[in-house]
């Protein structure tokens, strides 16, 4: 096995009843890469991601994440990955600090480490003034940044971000991508879905999913060449229209 490939997926499929949400997708993700996972609404991105992070059993196919098999070693995968879901999933009725403490705690960090992490994280995100405020009272952009940082609290090898910037203003989106780059520089592999094509340009490589299948996969530059267009937006439109 190539140790540089932190995610290896082969013919991975998920069927709900008689509907195939993810149809035999095959791809690899290199260590340290920012991998963009694009697709229209309902293309099957979230479903595919859930199989990779071990909370959804694949119907068939093969996949390893951080060297562990999604079928047999889902719990080992979980030690090595962070996940930020499409839906905001921190506790609105806990404060910023309490959320950090809780997730640090269930990842098994020591009290001391949690304290350190919380301090760094709050400073980095500029949340000093609201550290003891309930998360529910924060603006969406702040929540998303917090949620991203919390998903990195246990220093995972790979982080899965499902539309992390959905509904966020352009400035905050920019800041968010700075956080992503920073994580990437630290060697964390980033697996990210988005509907913003400008964000697709920031990725090292992108795949485009259409109706459960991966229809294109390459660097943004090569994809644009391949489809003879100037922007990722046009690549996407060409593919999605079929």
């Amino acid at each position, binding site marked *: 096995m190539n140790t540089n490939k932190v995610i290896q997926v082969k013919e991975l499929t998920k069927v709900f009843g008689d509907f195939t949400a993810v149809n035999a997708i095959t791809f690899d993700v290199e260590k340290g890469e920012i991998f963009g996972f694009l697709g229209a609404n309902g293309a099957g991105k979230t479903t595919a991601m859930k199989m990779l*992070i*071990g*909370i*959804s*059993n694949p119907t068939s196919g093969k996949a390893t994440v951080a060297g562990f098999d999604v079928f047999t070693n*889902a*719990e*080992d995968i*979980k*030690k090595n*990955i962070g*996940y930020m*879901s499409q*839906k*905001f*999933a*921190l*506790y*609105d*009725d*806990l404060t910023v600090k*309490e959320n950090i*403490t*809780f*997730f640090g*705690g*269930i*990842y*098994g960090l020591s009290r001391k480490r949690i304290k350190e992490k919380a301090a760094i994280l709050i400073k980095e995100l500029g949340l000093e003034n609201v550290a003891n405020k309930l998360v529910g009272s924060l603006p969406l952009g702040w929540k998303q940044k917090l949620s991203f940082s919390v998903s990195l609290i246990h220093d995972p090898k790979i982080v899965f971000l499902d539309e992390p910037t959905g509904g966020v203003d352009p400035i905050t989106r920019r800041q968010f991508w700075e956080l992503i780059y920073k994580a990437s520089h630290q060697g964390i592999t980033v697996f990210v879905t988005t509907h913003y094509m400008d964000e697709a340009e920031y990725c090292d490589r992108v795949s485009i999913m259409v109706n459960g299948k991966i229809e294109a996969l390459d660097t943004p530059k090569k994809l644009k060449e391949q489809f003879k267009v100037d922007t990722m937006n046009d690549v996407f439109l060409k593919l999605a229209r079929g």
Partner: protein
Amino acid sequence: MKTILYIIQKEFKQIFRNKGMLPIIFVLPLIQLIILSNAATFDVKNIKFGYVDHDHSSTSRELIEKFSASTYFNVHTDFPSEKLASQAMLNGEVDVVLEIPAYFERDLQKEKHNNLGVTINAIDGAAAGVENVYVTQIIQNFNKNLLVDLIQSSGSPKIQPINIVTIPSFWYNETLNYKTFMVPGILVLLVTMITLFLSGMNIVREKEIGTLEQINVTPIKKSQFIIGKLFPFWVIGLGLLTVGLTIAKLIFNIPIIGSLPLMYLYTSIYILVILGIGLFISNFTDTQQQAMFIAWFFTVIFILMSGLFTPIESMPKWAQIITEFNPIKYFVQVMRMVMLKGSGFMDILPLLLKTLFYAIVMNGLAIWSYKKTN
């Protein structure tokens, strides 16, 4: 272990931060106890009483005199034979028939004890239970050495509703105060309903808001999560028992004859059953609404079949078998036994073991059906 503590800490924070929750936990019990125990009174008046006296002695007349003197029994018919008496019962002309055997006086004096037959029309099971108590009380006061034999009234199949009911627990409520009888039972409902609803809703709520998924992507063990989740509700359940017992004692002046530690021991196991059920429900539902409906469904059945309002003995056989699976029934029995009768550890041991078994099965099922991966 440390992981569990983080969950417990978080859970308590959320519970006490939820402004709607605290009143539910601590004010509702008070209101429920006061309203229900006052409304659910079983006082039965104007019981139509009849007797068959085969003895015609001064003792038998004296006993019948006691019934005449009671304010609960009013019509008094002297039936010449059992046959006529049961005919009258069929026609609804009489609710209770006391049968005094021949040589009643002689045997009582000679052998120091004797048996009496009592037939009660149990169309209304609850009323029959109460009548049984009244009859027994009067007879016991008359002579402690008399044993009351409840006779299965022999009638044609069409008079099915007539049968005999005994509610032993009534015997220990000597003042015939129905609050004394109801309060321990209502206490049971309270502990059950609140812990079931809170625990069931709680986990489904995390499903709804998506935090459960966030927890499922962490390497946390199922058992750690479940223990951490359920422990706070276990504590709340015992807290409720404490609030309830305090109210029972201070407001209703209910005697607590048995051992308090024993009640807590039993309750602590009982709550595990309820929490297991709550978790089980939450594993099979996606929204708080669904969970609420299912929890209600079971609670209503459990309550109706608990022996709290209708004596189990007056239920049809199949229903009686179902009640064997009703945890509320056990809890009601134990509370009445310990609170009102002063039963000890050995007396409730069989119920305790059944409950423990139930707890193991329910929690086993709950843990098994809780899936981190779908």
